[in-house]
């Protein structure tokens, strides 16, 4: 799952190394427009539909947060 997430992130912002940051928002690697793109790309990659109530910066802040969100939607099954 981790590699897939990193691939999705690299597809949105190829100039950054997402494995080296613990806070993509504070580090300026993802802005709110990128987060919406990320939600859409994660939906497609993992065949899920992340609800609007979960589209919060804290759920996309780093790899751990994204993994936890995806587990909630059963993406690790």
């Amino acid at each position, binding site marked *: 799952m981790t590699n897939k997430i990193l691939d999705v992130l690299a597809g949105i912002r190829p100039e*950054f190394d997402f494995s080296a940051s613990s*806070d993509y928002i504070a580090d*300026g*690697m993802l802005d*709110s427009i990128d987060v919406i793109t990320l939600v*859409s790309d994660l939906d497609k990659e993992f065949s899920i*539909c992340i609800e*609007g*109530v979960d*589209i919060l910066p804290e759920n996309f802040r780093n790899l751990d947060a994204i993994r936890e969100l995806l587990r909630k939607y059963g993406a690790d099954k």
Partner: protein
Amino acid sequence: MILPVTDADQLAVAVGRVARSGTGYATNLFAPPTETARWIAARALSLLQEERALLVLRRDAGFHRLYHVASDAPALSAALGSLCAAMPEAMLVTDLVGKRESLGAVVDAHLLHAFLPHARLQRMYRLVEPSADDGRIDPDVVQAGPGDVHRVRALMQRQLDPYSEQIPDLDQLRDAVAKGSVLVVSRGPELAGVLVHDTVGFTSTLRYWHVDERFRNQGVGARLIKTFFGLCRDSKRILLWVIAGNDDAIARYRHYGFRDDALVDDIMLRQPRLVQ
């Protein structure tokens, strides 16, 4: 029913109520929490909630800016119909932000309710090379002080389109000055040029870069942007938005190493006079 927004939780709950449906989910409510908190404190926000869409109105100078969160384009269109029926005399301005190829359905929903295209902005970016900008100080370029705020805003008001370029208010400019994010060049008592920037982590954004007509072709703009590049030495990329048809500006940005991003911002206006 259109309700005033009185606190951030009310807005968050309203956004969370909008269910997503596959890939149709659409939003342009991208403002950071600090910005929405400022708007709420100024009592500038109101909202219209429907089952599958939320519209947020922000009062601006003589018009409302419109933001949406919608399950899909039909839900957005239905909500726009309700809004236009409730506020037939309101002048509405909206920014539709996304990849070029993904905006069609959202633009169509607005066209259906008499919104007309006003301008398109495109995003450009520049990767920062560690050794490219040496950070030399140009004595002609200084950080603006509190006393510059009014003349900076006056220059922006003379040169910018209020619908597509969101002129900062005095409080926003005071905050930017306090953060050291406003560079100016003066010629005698006159403000010759201004550059406003912003940095979050590794990303810097060039917000405004303007030279007074009387001082163009004198190197003022070049001095401002080279100083700005020097300040961005610790960033990894620089972003900006430019009007898509402004070939001179785009050529200038390309000259400084900026390239096209995939994102565009279609600005659409609904003017009651034209609707009638």
